[in-house]
């Protein structure tokens, strides 16, 4: 069925967690294509943008490889895209990590440091409060725990794109959905069965 004929691409720009994302997709029975080729990415039926580490480095890698333009194009075309962790952060207008850096500007808003007085990075399992009803949450109860590891967080200007929030001394946006763009601050590929379920839901929705 869909699993054999459709192309699931994982964007390879040197991010550290590509292997983990691929392992999760393989476990679900998909055979993802790991690629840095714009044409392969634009032809895929569903695309993953992994991310781990610093947003400025990630933006640099994305622009050096030309993948920044490719991701903007994917969003214009409303192709199903799932961005993870720093992959979410680079979708915004700018980040203040290591100085001021421009990001992709797909989701208006800024990425700022978690407030002091908290343990940083925010590392471990925390609950995601679902802010909308969407097939991506099928079989995933409200307030399910997902695995987080980050020191910065996204503040989208348009609150209607916030699909999930998490409490860490304050409430922050931990998930974004905008048309066919999905993004999580947490790592579904490291969040056990609920994380696998979220990828599976995304792919069922994307490859319909």
């Amino acid at each position: 069925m869909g699993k054999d004929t459709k192309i699931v691409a994982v964007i390879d720009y040197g991010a550290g967690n590509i292997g983990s994302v691929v392992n999760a997709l393989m476990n679900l029975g998909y055979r993802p294509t790991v690629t840095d080729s714009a044409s392969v990415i634009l032809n895929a039926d569903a695309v993953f943008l992994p991310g781990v580490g610093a947003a400025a480095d990630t933006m640099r890698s994305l622009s050096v490889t030309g993948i920044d333009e490719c991701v903007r194009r994917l969003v214009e075309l409303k192709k199903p895209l799932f961005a993870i962790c720093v992959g979410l952060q680079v979708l915004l207008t700018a980040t203040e990590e290591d100085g001021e850096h421009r990001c992709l500007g797909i989701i208006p808003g800024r990425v700022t440091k978690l407030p002091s007085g908290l343990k940083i990075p925010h590392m471990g399992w925390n609950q995601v409060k679902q802010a909308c009803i969407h097939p991506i949450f099928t079989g995933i109860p409200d307030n399910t725990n997902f695995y987080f590891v980050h020191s910065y967080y996204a503040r989208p200007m348009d609150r209607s794109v916030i699909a999930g929030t998490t409490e860490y001394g304050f409430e922050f946006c931990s998930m974004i959905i905008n048309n066919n763009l999905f993004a999580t601050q947490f790592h579904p590929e490291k969040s056990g069965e609920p994380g696998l379920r979220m990828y599976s839901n995304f792919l069922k929705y994307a490859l319909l």
Partner: protein
Amino acid sequence: MLTKRIIPCLDVTGGRVVKGTSFTNLRDAGDPVEQAAFYYGEGADELVFLDIGATPEGRETLVHVVESVAKQVFVPLCVGGGLRTIDDMRRMLKAGADKVSINTAAVQNPGLLKAGAAIFGRQCMVLAVDARRSANDSTAAWEVCTHGGRKPTGIDVLEWIEEAVDLGAGEILLTSWDADGQRSGYDNDLNRAVSELVTVPVIASGGAGTPEHLYQALSLGKADAVLAASIFHYREYSIRQTKEYLAAKGIPVRLQ
């Protein structure tokens, strides 16, 4: 609310999980890949693999163990033991580890923490510290030991940890040399001193004999996570049972 993490530790040597007392007297405790899958199913929040043999052959074996585990276990994996260079770290991360822990190599070359953090990100860099209480009780200080706890260095634990966090350590795996393998509780003076000192998460390790010990490390010791080996390896307590106990005592844990 962020939950406290319960982390089984798999001490590995020659491709097998082993368990000993104060870093010696090792007993066989199973196949690492099977153990990892078992703990994942039981609700472990993370897994730590420590190569206690720390030989080049052992490291080769561990790379394959990590590769197999990463294909079936979808929680964070931390690997340590004998990692000395950026290349050693890169191999483990490529094999599927999310974090690497370094101990002796960081003491010998603190620049390794900085270099690792710059390349892989702070969140990848776990500083493992083996802390031994000073013979002089009145000073209430701990000394850093290296080489699997065998070699006292004369370095003060708190000073070292502060420096290491400045350099790039994103998390502290804190093992009490005195309590390790004794099963009579963690060194919670040590855990609290370090947790209050740094803003990065602290994993308490060494001394777990009962779920109550884990509770004490998370409450009295203010640790963000607890690591335990033998209480889980010999199936005395399951991870689920331990988490239910902690939840009943008011500690936030992940139960799904």
